């Protein structure tokens, strides 16, 4: 059984007990434990079920590479699935449950899949569930989905109570990894004066060295780590962060880090996670190496673990995985585990070394401790179900015939080490295969390069393929100096490499294992991919490593193949009879380990998901019951219902009140862009279809803007402020887009024109004062002359109104007498209030966007986004009058001359009235005769906007109809959305109301 030893555990504080629960059982651990070590200390070996066969799964590793020990953490709103027990620091009250089983971990119905594993090979689902057709959706797929998946889904209504935030850092050198390599690299760079950020994914520093021991500069590794951290702490130019993972490397030295701020202390204040966006001139990845499992039958049974992990649990947490541990290896390092166990008083019945010659000094040390060593041997099979009970030993060169059976409750395995090259590879760093050490190592001649073509990532230490302490420290020292441009002549810290015999690659144990053994030899524990599966994929022609991965799901589990990929591709290369480097690796993608969605989203949640842009009058709208609609990043009042009034009724009232007397519209959201400079007129002539350069100061002109393809993209009134200055109004949603459009042309094509633009939308509050009494209310406010003579239609003037600085535009989007009045934004609310007060006697009525739309439709004015959709040219909308014939060019002109655009038979703007006065459905199409070659109903037009007009007391619509303007009076059939009901409508003039303009020109 696994248990807490009487003493030991360099990370645990035995004086502080911590209570937690697992699957409802109340357990205790110590401060400093991970959930994994605490569970082991409570003899909880089995922690979950695998993905496909629902096999029992126990801990394999001690760090972020763990594929098996995933738990549901917390419950309700704080429930988090798939949390690694190995990277979960224990805290008081922690609640964890095991995953992927029903009804419980011990008794899992899904385990029946395992009985059929002979049938459920790689890719079996591509070959069956084909007939009968409806069964896939209704029976097979739901079953597979239910069986797959891992952790419990959060509840539909779960609302994460925690907050997340983003940090930004700009450094000379980012060092990722807080082992001795990372510490030394950071120290060397820091001493050279570079601004350094050092991050470490765990809560502790020192990496493997502090577990494995060794002497650095005459100190114990642990002491050296402490000293070095202190030295770093004294450097102002160095910042260190634990619990912070280097997650991803992106172009141009953009690195993401992921800080788990208080996963270990959920009751503390502050954000739960932080996403760091680091811009680093140079990055050193000192990310260490990960031990590989060995592929033998039964290597997935709980109790079979990485040798380094077994050692970690003993040394770091004082926990023994089993009483009797068989160590199996192809290298010297695993002997350290046997020695550590023996020294801790545990039994190691045998070390099974696949190498004929065995190991070096460490083997001698183990033997001296009385441990039996069997060389040239392998494990034929692990015995046990939910827990290892023994192993059978065989000849590594044979086919698995049993030589001896040895009882044990733990197997510590080591297949060698794989450098963590993920971060190096994210942005294009390439790898070389090192035959001697059987590992992929970074190829420094093919590093990821930045904008200047120079490498921006350097790998140091065991991540770089150096496994000896001396080599690691020297490599890290060199890396730290080179990235900081240091010319210091200092030596690297002094240490010795342990004397070790070379590893011998073992990709299958025993090397001639039978099919029955190979189909029990796991490569990917979580996804249940075995040696036999990879061999099957190769046999079936899935020869590319990407095909094999996708066909077998090898390496697609939540550990992304940290343990399985190298073993898998070695198996594939053997099956294909190709060298490992020819087979190559799959692509390393960020993040290094999974990264919470909350951290990615950051602070932008709820109300501030996208900050709402507010006009100076916004609060008034809120206080007066406005119903809002989102328009761009603004919210505009749709209407202002009074108590008990429906939205529809409110809109009708607002239209009538405006037409009868006086309405107010908050028009502040309209885009306002200043275009200034001696070439401003020339520039606007290119931008608009109209001639703007001839506009006189003091005058306004309605303009149309098209894109290069000739399609109408925005409209608005342009006012000429002075000889060099124009103010261009855009639609609310178009302001930012049009400003960017202007800048794009100015910066890329007409960079030598003397024009500047500025988006001043938010500098002004703007109110449309509309209706027969508009002039009266302004006269009542007093100030500038607003008579017809003083400001004629399509003119503007600066002055004061009621003491406010006002720029008054005499323009109309409703057909009424109308003034749009801009005041400085900080006077906006007061001005609005003043208008309301002065307008009281005229039944002043604030109106929203819907009333605005209806009034413009009654007048046949087009609306960008309604009458246009990116496929409409101005000519379609009868706007020929706004297209200058005198200009040689404007954006879209040449496009509009193309064959199809110049076709006089396009769909064109008309008014539409149903025969019975009802409102045409929005978006309805007018059907034509017959069907096209693809059996679709032919059409001849469509509705672009449609309303009930309170002014005319009937439905009115605008639409585009094939050759429409020449078909006035004709009635045509529109199809309802049911595809059956025909609604007939008559083609009429789109100006429904006051076609002479008598109301606006007073």
């Amino acid at each position, binding site marked *: 059984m696994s248990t807490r030893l009487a003493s030991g555990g360099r990370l645990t504080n035995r004086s502080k007990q911590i209570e937690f629960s697992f699957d409802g059982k109340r357990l205790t651990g110590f401060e400093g434990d991970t959930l994994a070590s605490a569970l082991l200390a409570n003899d909880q070996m089995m922690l979950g079920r695998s993905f496909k066969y629902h096999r029992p799964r126990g801990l394999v590793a001690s760090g972020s590479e763990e594929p098996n020990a995933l738990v549901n953490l917390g419950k309700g709103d704080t429930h*988090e*699935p798939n949390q690694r027990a190995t990277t979960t620091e224990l805290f008081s009250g922690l609640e964890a449950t095991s995953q992927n089983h029903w009804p419980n971990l011990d008794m899992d119905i899904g385990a029946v899949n395992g009985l059929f594993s002979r*049938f459920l*090979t790689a890719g*079996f*689902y*591509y*070959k*069956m*569930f084909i007939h009968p057709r409806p069964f*896939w959706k209704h029976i097979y*797929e739901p079953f597979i*989905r239910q069986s*797959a*998946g*891992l*952790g419990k*889904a*959060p*509840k*539909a*209504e779960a*609302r994460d109570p925690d907050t997340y935030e983003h940090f930004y850092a700009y450094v000379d050198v980012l060092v990722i990894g807080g082992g001795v390599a990372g510490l030394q690299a950071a120290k060397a760079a820091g001493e050279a004066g570079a601004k350094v950020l050092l991050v470490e994914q765990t809560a502790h520093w020192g990496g493997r060295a502090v577990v494995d021991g060794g002497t650095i500069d005459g100190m114990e590794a642990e002491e050296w780590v402490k000293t070095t951290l202190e030295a770093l702490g004294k450097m102002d130019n160095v910042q260190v962060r634990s619990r912070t993972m280097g997650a991803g490397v*992106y*172009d141009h030295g953009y690195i*993401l880090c992921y800080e788990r701020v208080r996963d270990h202390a959920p009751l503390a204040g502050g954000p739960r996670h932080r996403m760091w966006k680091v811009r680093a001139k140079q990055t050193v990845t000192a990310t260490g190496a990960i031990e590989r499992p060995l592929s033998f039958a039964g290597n997935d049974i709980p109790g079979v673990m990485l040798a380094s992990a077994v050692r970690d649990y003993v040394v770091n947490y004082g926990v023994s995985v089993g009483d009797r541990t068989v160590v199996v290896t192809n290298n010297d390092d695993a002997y350290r585990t046997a020695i550590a166990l023996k020294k801790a008083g545990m039994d190691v019945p045998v070390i099974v070394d696949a190498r004929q010659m065995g190991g070096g000094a460490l083997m001698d040390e183990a033997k001296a401790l009385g441990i039996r060593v069997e060389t040239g041997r392998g494990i034929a099979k692990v015995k046990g179900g939910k827990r290892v009970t023994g192993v059978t030993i065989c000849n590594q060169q044979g086919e698995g015939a049993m030589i001896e059976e040895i009882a044990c409750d733990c197997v510590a395995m080591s297949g060698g080490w794989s450098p963590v090259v993920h971060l190096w590879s994210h942005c294009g760093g390439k790898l070389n295969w090192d035959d001697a050490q059987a590992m992929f190592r970074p190829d420094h001649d093919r590093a990821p390069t930045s904008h200047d073509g120079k490498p921006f990532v350097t790998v140091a230490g065991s991540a770089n393929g150096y496994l000896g302490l001396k080599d690691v420290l020297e490599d890290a020292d060199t890396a730290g100096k080179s990235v900081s441009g240091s010319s210091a002549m200092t030596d690297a810290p002094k240490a010795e490499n342990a004397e070790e015999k070379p590893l011998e690659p073992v990709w299958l144990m025993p090397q001639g294992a039978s099919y029955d053994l190979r189909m029990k030899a796991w490569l990917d524990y979580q996804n249940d991919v075995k040696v*036999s599966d990879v061999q099957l994929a190769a*046999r079936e022609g899935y020869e590319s490593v990407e095909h094999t991965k*996708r*066909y077998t799901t090898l390496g697609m589990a*939540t550990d*992304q193949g940290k343990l399985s990929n190298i073993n898998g591709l070695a198996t594939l290369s053997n099956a294909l009879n190709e060298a490992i480097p020819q087979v190559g690796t799959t*692509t390393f*993608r960020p*993040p290094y380990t*999974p*990264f*919470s*969605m*909350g951290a*990615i*989203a*950051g602070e932008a949640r709820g*109300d501030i*998901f996208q900050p709402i842009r507010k006009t100076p009058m916004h609060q008034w709208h809120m206080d007066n019951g406005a119903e809002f609609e*989102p328009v761009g990043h603004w919210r505009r009042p749709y209407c202002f219902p009074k108590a008990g009034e429906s939205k529809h009724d409110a809109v009708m009232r607002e239209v009538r009140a405006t037409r009868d007397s006086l309405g107010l519209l908050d028009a502040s959201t309209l885009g306002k862009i200043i275009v200034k400079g001696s070439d401003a007129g020339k520039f606007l002539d290119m931008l608009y279809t109209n001639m703007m350069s001839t506009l006189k100061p003091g005058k306004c002109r309605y303009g149309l803007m098209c894109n290069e*393809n*000739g399609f109408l993209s925005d409209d608005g009134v342009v006012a000429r402020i002075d000889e060099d200055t124009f103010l261009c109004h855009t639609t609310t949603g178009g302001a930012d887009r049009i400003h960017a459009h202007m800048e794009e042309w100015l910066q890329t094509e007409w960079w030598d024109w003397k024009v500047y633009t500025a988006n001043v939308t938010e500098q002004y509050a703007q109110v449309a004062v509309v209706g027969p009494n508009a002039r009266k209310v302004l006269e009542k406010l007093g100030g500038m002359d607003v008579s017809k003579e003083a400001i004629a239609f399509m003119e503007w003037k600066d002055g004061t109104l009621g003491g406010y600085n006002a720029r008054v535009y005499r323009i109309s989007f409703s057909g009424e007498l109308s003034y749009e009045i801009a005041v400085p934004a900080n006077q906006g609310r007061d001005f609005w209030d003043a208008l309301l007060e002065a307008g009281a006697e005229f039944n002043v009525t604030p109106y929203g966007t819907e009333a605005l739309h209806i009034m413009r439709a009654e007048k046949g004015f087009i609306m960008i986004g309604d009458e246009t959709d*990116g496929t409409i040219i101005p000519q379609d909308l009868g706007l020929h009058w706004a297209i200058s014939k005198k200009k040689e060019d404007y954006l879209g002109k040449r496009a509009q001359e*193309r*064959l199809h655009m110049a076709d006089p038979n396009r769909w064109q703007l008309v008014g539409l009235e149903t025969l019975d006065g009802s409102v045409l459905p929005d*978006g*309805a*199409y007018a059907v034509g005769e017959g069907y*096209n070659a*693809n059996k*679709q109903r032919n059409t001849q037009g469509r509705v672009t906007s449609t309303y009930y007009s309170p002014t005319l007391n009937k439905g009115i619509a605008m639409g585009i109809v094939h050759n429409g303007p020449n078909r006035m009076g004709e009635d045509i059939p529109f*199809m309802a*959305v049911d*595809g059956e009901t025909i609604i007939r409508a008559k083609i009429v003039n789109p100006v429904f109301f006051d076609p002479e303009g008598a109301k606006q020109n007073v």
Partner: protein
Amino acid sequence: MKRYSAFAIAREALKGHTGWERAWRNAQPKKRYDVIIVGAGGHGLATAYYLGKNFGITNVAVIEKGWLGGGNTGRNTTIIRSNYLQDPSAAIYEKARSLYETMSQDLNFNVMFSPRGVLMLAQTEHEVRGYQRTAHANALQGVTTEFVSPERVKEIVPIINIDGPRYPVLGGLWQARAGTARHDAVAWGYARACSDMGMDIIQKCEVTGVTRENGKVTGVETTKGHIGCDKLGIVVAGHSGQVAELAGFRLPIEAVPLQALVSEPIKPCMDCVVMANTVHGYMSQSDKGEMVIGGGTDGYNGFTQRGSFHHVEETVRALVETFPMISRLKMLRQWGGIVDMTGDRSPILSKTPVEGVFINCGWGTGGFKAIPGSGWGFAELMATGHSPLTADFGLNRFREGRFIDESVAAGVAH
């Protein structure tokens, strides 16, 4: 070809699965073929398949620079829908969708087409009107869609937050027979069927030139030597412009990175695809349990099959807002692919200035869903010179201004 079935699996299980044959032959190029397709992605393989199946043309090679299905076919988010606005788009996507329904049986390869429904959220008044229009258009195009209420949205997707503070859900366009499929399986299934018809699928073979005589194609130069042909189909999304240049013509195409990501797998919690175009993100759940997430394209042109993280950030932020329960899930993996963008965001399936050379490209961000329809129509175009499915997608439309612009209906076009 040995057929796949539960029975075949049982038989093989008893003999250690030693009897499975290769899904597709490992072919080496012959001297010449009637037709060469460049690009063994979904579209290229589907084209070859329908050339054989519908027109009896089987002396065909499909040439692939890397591994088959390794481009956008193996990188997309597997969404299949046909609720497009414009007639030509609706026609080809609906043809594709209907072919997906029977693809597993047709190919004897389970591509796991899952008609679980696609829901496009309307979160502004403008979107409501846009989708109402699409529903009207679809009714005339033979595409079954429906504009549904916010309450119905919540019923279809219980994990959605329909009354978020920023963009409450005002309704949605629901296509119940849309869904997802297993993307790799589509490529593998077609490859197996093509190989079975005697076609050669030649991987790790890069085209380095297009040989012509008197304005007519005669073959291709490749890293495995010259291969002759009468007709050449270029189906190489992401590098269309480069291969077209080898044939001596230019395309109105830009190459842009498009990114996607998945969460760690969880138990089933979402039974349809949801697209939220106002906030720019979409999500579904794979059979494996991962939440599959995508957004818009990056803002710059490029060929690295990765993108900038701020785009991922924007997408995830949008989806955490739309589906708050994913906040504590974790992103497992992000990746990118290179998509062809045309001026009107619609594909090009066309003859070219070079006689015998045909081009199929420009699917932008939404090519996967079109694979069978694209292959069907493009095969017809290559075999007969005309297809009603592809007629409107010719190269000449850019010269004539005959755009098929879907931008109105799709801020995020998947």
